[in-house]
């Protein structure tokens, strides 16, 4: 059975390793407005009459899925078996968050329990929350069944900051991976600490922890590939490739990444709901797996690795430890 067959049958196998709950509960308004600001600049330059409030309203209309029901529907249509929900902790850096990070974890647990077979959750905690944050993260692994750690350096810290080491020790103990944001983000945050090389020290000091560089097919590509090739415990995800589809409908960025001999390190991801104005999950899968898709030149083995086996392998060890 091929991947394409999988997508059309009742037994989808694809794992989307990079998603978020589409709700303002977890993404503050300032973060969204910052992202919209770039759109306003681009559209205004073309002489298009647009205001930020209107664009924000359109974007927010795609952020009304707090229980994950809409995402589950889109996953089924796209042949996605499971998605990883990432909790980016903006609560220390941005002061307009609706929920505390503890409340955000609780909401994710609610979604996980509502759709137990559809999601895994990677909790994220800003290390500046200190011992309380560490305790919350440990609880998430031991009690909630979360399976990873999400790090968001543009909030104001390096991913190799020693304040994160106790978190990585927990990751090593519980055999769970770390997924960290790479590259630009909302302009309200700091781009200067988004380089993949900043993970190198932590990756070297914690060789049993697997680190996933988010957006590695579109941000700092050369550096991400280098780290994946020479650090056994560094991977990348391709989420964000949708941003390139306007000028490159064939997703050459993904085609390029998987042509470099690191298919065993590449994970499929979509960054739902960021590109929801552009299309649905099935459209983003189709670009890769359809006729002339970006993964067409891979053999079945390699395609399986990218679409689900690599993610499965990283998450499975956590499940085995928990069991």
């Amino acid at each position, binding site marked *: 059975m091929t991947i394409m067959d999988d997508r059309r049958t009742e037994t989808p196998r694809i794992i989307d390793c990079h998603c978020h709950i589409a709700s303002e509960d977890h993404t503050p308004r300032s973060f969204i407005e910052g992202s919209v600001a770039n*759109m306003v600049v*681009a*559209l205004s330059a*073309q002489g*298009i*009459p*647009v205001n930020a409030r*209107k*664009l924000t*309203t*359109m974007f927010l*209309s*795609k952020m009304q899925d707090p229980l994950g029901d809409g995402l589950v529907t889109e996953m089924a249509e796209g042949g996605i078996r499971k998605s990883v929900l990432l909790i980016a902790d903006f609560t220390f850096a941005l002061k307009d968050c609706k929920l505390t990070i503890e409340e955000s974890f609780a909401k994710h647990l609610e979604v996980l329990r509502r759709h137990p077979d559809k999601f895994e959750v990677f909790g994220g905690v800003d290390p500046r929350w200190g011992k309380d944050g560490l305790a919350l993260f440990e609880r998430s692994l031991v009690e909630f069944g979360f399976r990873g750690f999400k790090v968001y350096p543009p909030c104001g810290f390096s991913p190799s900051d020693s304040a994160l080491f106790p978190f990585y020790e927990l990751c090593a103990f519980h055999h769970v991976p770390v997924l960290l944001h790479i590259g630009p983000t909302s302009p309200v945050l700091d781009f200067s600490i988004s380089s993949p090389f900043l993970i190198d020290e932590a990756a070297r000091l914690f060789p049993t922890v697997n680190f996933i560089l988010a957006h590695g097919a579109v941000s700092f590509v050369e550096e991400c590939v280098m780290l994946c090739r020479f650090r056994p415990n560094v991977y990348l995800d391709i989420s964000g490739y*949708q*941003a390139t*589809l*306007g*000028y490159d*409908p064939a997703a050459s960025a993904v085609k390029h990444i998987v042509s470099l001999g690191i298919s065993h390190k590449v994970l499929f991801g979509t960054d739902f709901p960021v*590109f*929801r*104005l*552009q*299309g*649905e999950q099935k*459209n983003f899968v189709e670009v890769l797996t359809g006729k002339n898709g970006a993964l067409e030149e891979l053999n079945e083995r390699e395609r399986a690795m990218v679409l689900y086996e690599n993610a499965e392998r990283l998450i499975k060890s956590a499940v085995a430890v928990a069991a």
Partner: protein
Amino acid sequence: MELDAKFDERIMALIAEAVPGKFKKTKITMETSLQKELGLDSLGMLSLVFRFEELFGIDIAQMGIDVNIAKLKTVGDIMGVARDIISKVPLAREV
């Protein structure tokens, strides 16, 4: 507003205006894919919506119409939505 051939031409012209230079030579038909063949990403689609509103002097959101941009895949899809919107606005006019 009368939904005649002239209306279709105006919509086709709007679409052509939103297409990035790299895809300008693509022949636009009702079946043409917006993303694959015309390179219209979310920003391109938004520009189309705003130019449409400007052309007909309307505000789609204020009309209470929910246009799901993500579901628009072909030029024909846009034409269908545009016709639907304008048919609900008898006083819409080209400005």
